[in-house]
């Protein structure tokens, strides 16, 4: 999954990953070490820009992220950049993700009588301020991938079609990709519905559809993600994640 993320990243872009987001952080660091040396990212919760630490910290606000960073964004800076649309991309997740890439982190059920109270919306409204966004999740289940989220914390493509463009500033586009342990998805350009484009080697189209609570679109040319190259594995093990944090998520990372 970190490697799938790495492959999608363009050189020179500038983006953000949330707190406790080891997999995207690893993917971005790997991209920096391979094809995208001028990719820049900062770690939410700490503000550390391009940390060089060769370990993945459990907490992104760990001071070791800060002291090895190139710059240490203030929360003021982060919020300004998010609002002013200076981030090319962001990685975001949700306790519910729907077929149009809308995200819910607030609660499941009715807001007045929640069945499950989530941690809260935190930075998800900035989906209206990022130039684009990437969704990732460590779990791919029908409870997470629902037809319609119970509460929109972060606006994806809203009801699909051109719904989003009527609401947000034109420079802010919706989610581009979804990364899950099972596959990689985009959004079909007209309907803005989630569409399978890549399958991880341990997965299949059928498994993915069964794990998804709505009918998936399937791209004409779904590819199977190849095994990581030796170089990628070596970099991950020596430069990105010396402590093997990613291996705690065996079928995921």
């Amino acid at each position: 999954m970190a490697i799938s993320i790495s492959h999608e990243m363009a050189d020179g872009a500038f983006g953000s990953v949330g707190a406790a987001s080891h997999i995207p952080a690893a993917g971005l660091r790997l991209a920096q070490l391979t094809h995208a040396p001028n990719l820049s990212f900062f770690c939410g919760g700490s503000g550390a820009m391009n940390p060089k630490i060769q370990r993945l910290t459990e907490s992104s606000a760990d001071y070791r992220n800060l002291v090895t960073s190139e710059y240490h964004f203030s929360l003021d800076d982060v919020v300004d950049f998010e609002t002013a649309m200076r981030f090319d991309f962001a990685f975001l997740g949700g306790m519910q993700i729907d077929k149009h890439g809308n995200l819910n982190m607030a609660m499941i059920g009715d807001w007045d009588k929640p069945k499950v109270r989530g941690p809260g919306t935190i930075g998800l409204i900035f989906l209206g301020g990022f130039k684009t966004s990437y969704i990732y999740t460590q779990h791919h289940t029908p409870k997470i991938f629902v037809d319609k989220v119970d509460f929109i914390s972060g606006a994806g493509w809203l009801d699909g079609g051109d719904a989003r463009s009527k609401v947000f500033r034109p420079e802010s586009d919706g989610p581009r990709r979804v990364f899950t342990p099972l596959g990689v998805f985009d959004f079909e350009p007209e309907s803005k519905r989630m569409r399978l484009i890549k399958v991880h080697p341990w997965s299949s189209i059928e498994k993915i559809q069964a794990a998804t609570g709505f009918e998936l679109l399937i791209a004409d040319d779904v590819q199977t993600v190849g095994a990581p190259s030796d170089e990628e594995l070596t970099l991950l093990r020596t430069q990105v994640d010396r402590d093997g944090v990613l291996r705690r998520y065996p079928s995921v990372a």
Partner: protein
Amino acid sequence: MSANKVTTPEEAVAGIPDGATIALGGVHSHNGPMALVNALIRRGVKDLELIPTPSAGPPVDMLIAAGCVRRLHVSYVGLEFLGMAPNYRRAAESRSIEIVEADEAYIVYGFRAGASRLPFLPLPALYEGTDLPKVNKDIRSTTDPYTGKTVTTIPALRADYGLFHAQVTDRKGNTQIFGQRRFEDVMAKACEHVIISSDEILDEYAPAPDPRLVSIPGAIVDSVAHAPYGSHPLSSPGHYAYDREQLVEYRDLAAQDRTKEYLEKYVFSVNDHQEYLDKLGARRLLGLQQTFR
């Protein structure tokens, strides 16, 4: 204000009344003003309105478990890499606390406006696509006098007391916070009273620190609680790491709705922060040290 503001955590929070609005520092597992929070819990303060930083964790969950909280502004409340915050979740699901459905923008821009006492803050299109305005009636709108269009607004946030943890503070309250930068200072400016818990007090004959390293100016600080390991079991960046073992103990008890046992063991069974330190012992505390300086 007096030139020497140094006191104990217990004295520092002694004047906080039931029903006060509290701005609470600390980001995820770092810089939680735990010695102050423990003292508040020990006092049995009630009906607090909490406005924590956008990334809140254990101190909020503990204050809820101890029955101190009436109303909570939520951007994120969780235990970061240890999962959901169990007491917050139960209290919200049972409606025993009132939730203000907020987010990072609401808290940061709200406190920024509060720091300057601006009447409110208008935002570009961000909330428009979301469900937050449906459940938070303080997300409103007005007319942009430059374009004639309707824009979304959020209210200015202010608090009666701000509680923040710092690594080093001088006797006048000039506060050095290492960790996430430049938000606790904004929050502090939006508070009527500012209370700092500080691992170390700068010796009065020490050379003054580079003023660029001072986050919160003494001019707006009321008292400085000298609290070595005052953020434990959370981390004080560059001074000590979080105490993972104790955090897991908390998480496991809280998940089983046995938080009372944790509070009994670490908060109520001691009279003050000094006894808390005795209880933990030098070996455990010094084992958490990080060498940054």
